[in-house]
């Protein structure tokens, strides 16, 4: 028999909360040279426990760190084939992260990703093999090649619609493939460049140390891509483009040049893809026209579709799934593609935006159902509208307002012509039960709801009615210009105003 656990009121056991020590000043470390904090700590007063508590508002960095550390630590214990799969995963994650920048952040539907990678690879490999460029400079060469190609591809991107641009970039990849295959010097090798210099020493190739070094390189590449993604997506450029995604015309109206920002993102990503291309050539020691092929592109597309467009987690998850199936389950044969297609189908049919968006989608769905149900139940004219109630932190306020509403409903029922007549006859003095209740309610009201009687200066028995502003320093305002010559008449006028307010509420 398990003992039932009880929790303190107001505690949320599923949430990790740190206590806040009142005697120690809050230390919020910043990243050096920036104004950024590493983690998003938030603190608040728990209204139930009346304690200050801290919690991590964004736990994603935590998960990322855990996953990356696990991957890095487990790598030396992996078998040779698993190590290759892990390396390929890292390379493709890097490619997909930059592609996500282009499609998600910049909103340019480019399919030339692998083409840019391929061009970076070919340019750097050719410089290395034919002109003897040392391998560290290959990255630079690849980056420059990617930048140039990116600049060329970016020209029509603002002019063309999504699908047209996608087609154009697909055509560009095809042209690259044909062009490379037709190149005279490469014809004997079927269009590929072999024996490319590499950061992996030649005699280590396909040996254990070579594989480990290759993985280390790929891992660093992925980290760099993540950093690029973070800097571009969540800093200035990303913020500018976020506004453009919501409403292009509005962004333009407030002076955001979103086209320029898109071009910048595109160029940065293209340069990055070129660098990845140089790495790709070094990693395999060769580069072949297969990198431009449609099948490769489809597989890449499947990765980011399964993961979800526009988010770094999506790129990583999708790549992990597809690479595991495609490279990890080699003995399944052609069934692998079928499996990938089936996953793609299921993910697209069930989620709005890939696996990474599934959680948000579920929350949105639940919230919509809840608010619909609440809207069905609760009545308008009730004090707290359901959509408002979600946002009110202190739930007591909701009940207080609901109570007030019911009270007013009861009082409204009490107000009859007889009651008003009774007050007119005798504004002060002993009243019937109903009138006492109404008057008591009026007296207990907030200042902002109240009126006052103002005696006109210099005149005897001349009164006007003013309404309080309810704000310190803001004077009352005259309700109307009517002058009452009898104080009882003025009392009754105030009463009528209050009754009117009550009936209107």
């Amino acid at each position: 028999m398990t003992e039932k656990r009880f929790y303190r009121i107001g505690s949320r056991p599923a949430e990790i909360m740190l206590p806040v020590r009142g005697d120690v000043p809050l230390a919020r470390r910043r990243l050096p040279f920036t104004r950024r904090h590493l983690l998003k700590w938030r603190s608040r007063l728990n209204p139930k426990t009346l304690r200050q508590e801290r919690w991590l508002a964004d736990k994603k960095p935590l998960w990322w760190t855990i996953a990356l550390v696990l991957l890095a630590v487990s790598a030396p214990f992996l078998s040779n084939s698993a190590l290759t799969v892990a390396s390929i995963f890292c390379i493709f994650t890097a490619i997909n992260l930059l592609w996500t920048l282009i499609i998600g952040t910049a909103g340019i539907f480019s399919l030339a990703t692998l083409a840019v990678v391929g061009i970076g690879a070919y340019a750097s490999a050719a410089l290395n093999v034919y002109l003897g460029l040392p391998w560290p400079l290959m990255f630079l060469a690849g980056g420059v090649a990617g930048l140039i190609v990116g600049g060329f591809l970016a020209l029509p991107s603002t002019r063309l619609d999504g699908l047209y641009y996608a087609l154009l970039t697909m055509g560009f990849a095809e042209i690259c493939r044909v062009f490379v295959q037709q190149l005279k010097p490469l014809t004997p090798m079927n269009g590929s460049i072999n024996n490319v210099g590499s950061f992996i020493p030649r005699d280590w190739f396909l040996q254990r140390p070579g594989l480990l070094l290759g993985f280390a390189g790929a891992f660093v590449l992925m980290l760099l891509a993540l950093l690029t993604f973070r800097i571009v997506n969540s800093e200035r450029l990303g913020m500018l483009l976020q506004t453009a995604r919501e409403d292009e015309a509005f962004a333009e109206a407030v002076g955001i040049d979103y086209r320029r920002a898109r071009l910048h993102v595109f160029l940065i990503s293209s340069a990055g893809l070129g660098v990845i291309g140089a790495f790709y050539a070094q990693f395999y020691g060769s580069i072949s026209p297969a990198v431009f092929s449609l099948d490769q592109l489809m597989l890449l597309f499947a990765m980011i579709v399964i993961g979800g467009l526009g988010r770094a987690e999506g790129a990583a998850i999708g790549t992990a799934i597809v690479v595991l199936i495609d490279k990890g389950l080699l003995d399944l044969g052609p069934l692998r593609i079928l499996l990938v297609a089936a996953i793609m189908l299921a993910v697209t049919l069930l989620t709005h935006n890939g696996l990474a968006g599934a959680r948000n989608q579920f929350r949105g769905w639940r919230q919509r159902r809840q608010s619909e149900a609440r809207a069905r139940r609760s009545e308008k004219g009730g004090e707290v509208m359901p959509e408002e109630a979600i946002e009110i932190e202190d739930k007591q306020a909701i009940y207080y307002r609901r109570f007030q509403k019911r009270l007013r409903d009861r009082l409204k029922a009490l107000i009859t012509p007889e009651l008003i007549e009774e007050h007119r006859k005798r504004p002060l003095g002993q009243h019937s039960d109903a009138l006492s209740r109404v008057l008591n309610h009026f007296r207990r009201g907030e200042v902002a709801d109240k009126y006052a009687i103002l005696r006109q200066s210099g005149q005897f028995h001349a009164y006007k009615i003013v309404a309080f502003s309810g704000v310190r320093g803001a004077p009352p305002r005259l309700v109307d210009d009517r002058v009452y010559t009898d104080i009882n008449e003025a009392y009754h006028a105030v009463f009528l105003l209050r009754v009117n307010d009550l009936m209107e509420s």
Partner: protein
Amino acid sequence: MDLSVTLVHGLSLAAIYGLMAIGISLLWSSIGMINMAHGASFAVAGYAAWAASEAAKPLFLAAFGKTIAGTAAMAGLTLGTGALAGAMMGALIYLLAFLPIHDKPNFPVRSLIVTLALNLATVQVLLWWFGPRQKNLPKIFGTGKVEVLGISARYDQIGTIAATFLILGLVLLWLRVSRKGLEIRAMMQNPEGAVLSGISVRWTALPVTMLTGALAGLAAILLSQTIFVSPTSGAMPLIKGLTIALLGGLGSVPGAVLGAIIIGFLEAVIGAIPFLGQRYVLFGTFLFIIVVLILRPRGLGGLLDEARK
């Protein structure tokens, strides 16, 4: 190479591409879906026709012998099976890529992805079932050449051109005059207005997907007179159809026809120029399309379709 041969070749290519492109364009304009599984419909129709013709060959040989009637029966059978298989694929696309998500967010992108996945899966299933070996469809127009007005053309080229014109003419006429056509056009312009007129979006989309599937199936049979049926044989027609549909301006049927004619002739001409040859055909067409799209970002359709605002 003779100019007239190029002309006939270009026209027959244009006919087949036109069948594909109009299917894609029609589907986009009526239900807002880019059908990437059009190539799968193409391949499935080819295999279905092949299987039917293999099964029926001894039967027809026994019944008709090697006569015109035998060829005609075979033609009817393959075309019918092809169209039917294409229509069935269309129905499958409707069930998977339209019905579950048509009123959900991101429908255009999601349906594109679903049809792409369908395409991948279908190619793999075909590969697994029939193997990578190419199949040969019976020559439904017979073999031989004929001279018309000094232009010599193969039977299958003439047959392809004639059949395409007939099919496309019938389809376009049907869309223009029939009640269903009106329904489709109403739906593509204003779904809510269509619903208020008693037109069910769900039931209108089914015939459209089946029709475009059948068009792909017919294109498969016609193209298979010159090339073989293989699991990946749908990829090239799909890309051609898609590029032509885009070149013509998505959703514009006259644009698609014009695009098909231009691309068909362009391919025939590039293929015929000795120092370029077949290897540069795709290269050349893509280059041409890129240039056109940069000059006219919405394709050719904007020039033709003045009704669109």
